[in-house]
Structure formats: structure tokens, C-alpha cells
């Protein structure tokens, strides 16, 4: 039987998010402007990412933020919620989260640093 797996993706005016599985990792990319208009869509996307990561037993979810112009505090809170949900998984099925940011962009540098402090054992940073 052919099994087709759709990786999460979404697009709104001014913001998009996509994902693909590569070498046992779920690679996601956020682009555009994540302001208050995007919060619900981002929450839905991260829920789908969580379900995909579980069902495909990936070891890591990579979130590439480098093409993101800005993320507001409401969307950051959505990221925090996702991190807490991921942390609830049993240890054997838990995936790591790698946040990839551009160190030249102040909000990216500072926001990912704060997000990593929420769950130091789960969230790693790459710049």
C-alpha cells in the first residue's frame, strides 16, 4: 500500500512556513513577517509539525528563522507553547528542536536565546 505523507506547510499574505524530512530531521523554514495576523496560522502549523515529527519519528525539528523579517511576542508565545508540548513527549520519542537564526538580526539573536532558556535540554541554537 502506498503511504503518502504530506509535510506541514502554510502560506498567508506576507508569511509562509514549509517543511520537509531530510536525513531523519524535519526541516522547517519560516519566511516573511510574523505579526499578530499570523499567530493562529503559526500555531496550527506548529501543531502539524509536532504531529508530523511524532508520526515520522524524527530525531530533530530544525526551524530556520533566517528569512523571517520579524516575529512579534504573540508568535513567540506560540513557539513557547510548542516547546512545552514537545517537552511532554516520553523521552524515547522526544525530538530535539534546533533554532537557526541570523546573528546580525537583533530580534532573532535575542529571541532564540530566550527561547532556548525555556527548555535548555530540548532547544539548541545555530547561527
Amino acid at each position: 500500500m502506498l503511504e503518502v505523507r504530506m509535510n506541514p506547510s502554510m502560506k498567508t499574505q506576507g508569511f509562509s512556513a514549509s517543511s520537509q524530512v531530510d536525513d531523519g530531521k524535519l526541516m522547517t523554514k519560516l519566511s516573511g513577517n510574523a505579526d499578530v495576523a499570523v499567530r493562529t496560522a503559526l500555531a496550527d502549523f506548529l501543531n502539524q509539525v509536532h504531529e508530523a515529527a511524532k508520526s515520522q519519528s524524527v530525531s530533530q525539528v530544525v526551524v530556520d528563522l533566517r528569512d523571517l523579517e520579524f516575529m512579534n511576542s504573540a508568535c513567540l508565545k506560540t513557539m513557547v507553547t510548542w516547546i512545552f508540548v514537545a517537552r511532554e513527549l516520553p523521552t524515547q520519542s522526544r525530538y530535539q528542536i534546533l533554532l537557526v537564526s541570523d546573528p546580525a538580526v537583533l530580534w532573532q539573536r535575542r529571541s532564540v536565546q530566550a527561547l532556548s532558556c525555556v527548555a535548555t535540554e530540548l532547544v539548541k541554537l545555530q547561527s
Partner: protein
Amino acid sequence: MIVATMLALEMRLDRNALFVSPTRRYVQRMLECLVEDKELVQRGALAVHELLENGAKYAPVGAHIDLSLALEGDDPALVIRMTNPTSPAHVDRLKQYVAEIQGAADPNALYVEMMCRNPYDESVSGLGLARIRAEADMSLDLLFAAETATIVARSAAPQATQAA
């Protein structure tokens, strides 16, 4: 003491979240033309965004939000003021919230702590002003008149800002 003001910008916006991102971009581009310190430009843009979203959320329907920016002093310091009408109940919450931020010995630790409060409630972030203090490294003050609140965000002198 007379403090020289090198730049002053005043804007009046409708209470509408749609204006927030375009205003942040406008302010960022304006500051890029006038301020050499690229970090200060980004700090100012972040603060403007979070202040305006706060105003758009808590001002009553039909109200206006007043935003002003000024570069003051020789260093210079960036001073952002946002004024909007709001309810007495929100004023009380705002006083408590800002007092907690002002009293924090470590703004970054408080910011992370606030992230972890009610982590599953995505309806309210409660992070905007704490983010201005921690990520934009700007002090916060509150002024009240009748049912109008003014939040003032002020950058420290460049040499006093934190290293990332």
C-alpha cells in the same frame, strides 16, 4: 539641564493592528538614515512594534494611538512614547506589569520566567513590554492622565547597553 533633541517624529494612528508592521518598517528605515548604530535602529523598531500592538489591543474601538520618537542627548538615547486611551482595569494591570519589569534585577531572567507562565495559553502573550526591556534593552516608564496611558521606552547610552 537642557537635553538636545536631534530627531522628533510624531504620528497619530487609528487603533488597528494592520498599521503596526508598516509603521515598524517606516520607523526602521527612517532611523537607518539617521542613526549610525545599527543595533539601536533594530532595538527601536522592535520597541515600536510591541508598543503599537499593545496599544491596538487595549485601546477602545475608534480610539487613536499617538506615537512619538526622539533622539535625545549626545550619546544619543532613543525615546519612544506611545499614548492611548484605555480602561481603568487595564491601567491597574499595566501598573503591576511595568512595576514588575522595572523591579527586575535581571530583565532577561524575568523575560524567560514570563515566557513560562501559562505556557499553554496562546490567547495572551503577556510578553510585549518585557521583551522591550530584555531584547531591546530599553527602560520603561508609565504616565497616566484620566483614562489615558503613556508608555515611555528609553534606550540606555550605547556604552551601557548589554552585549548579546
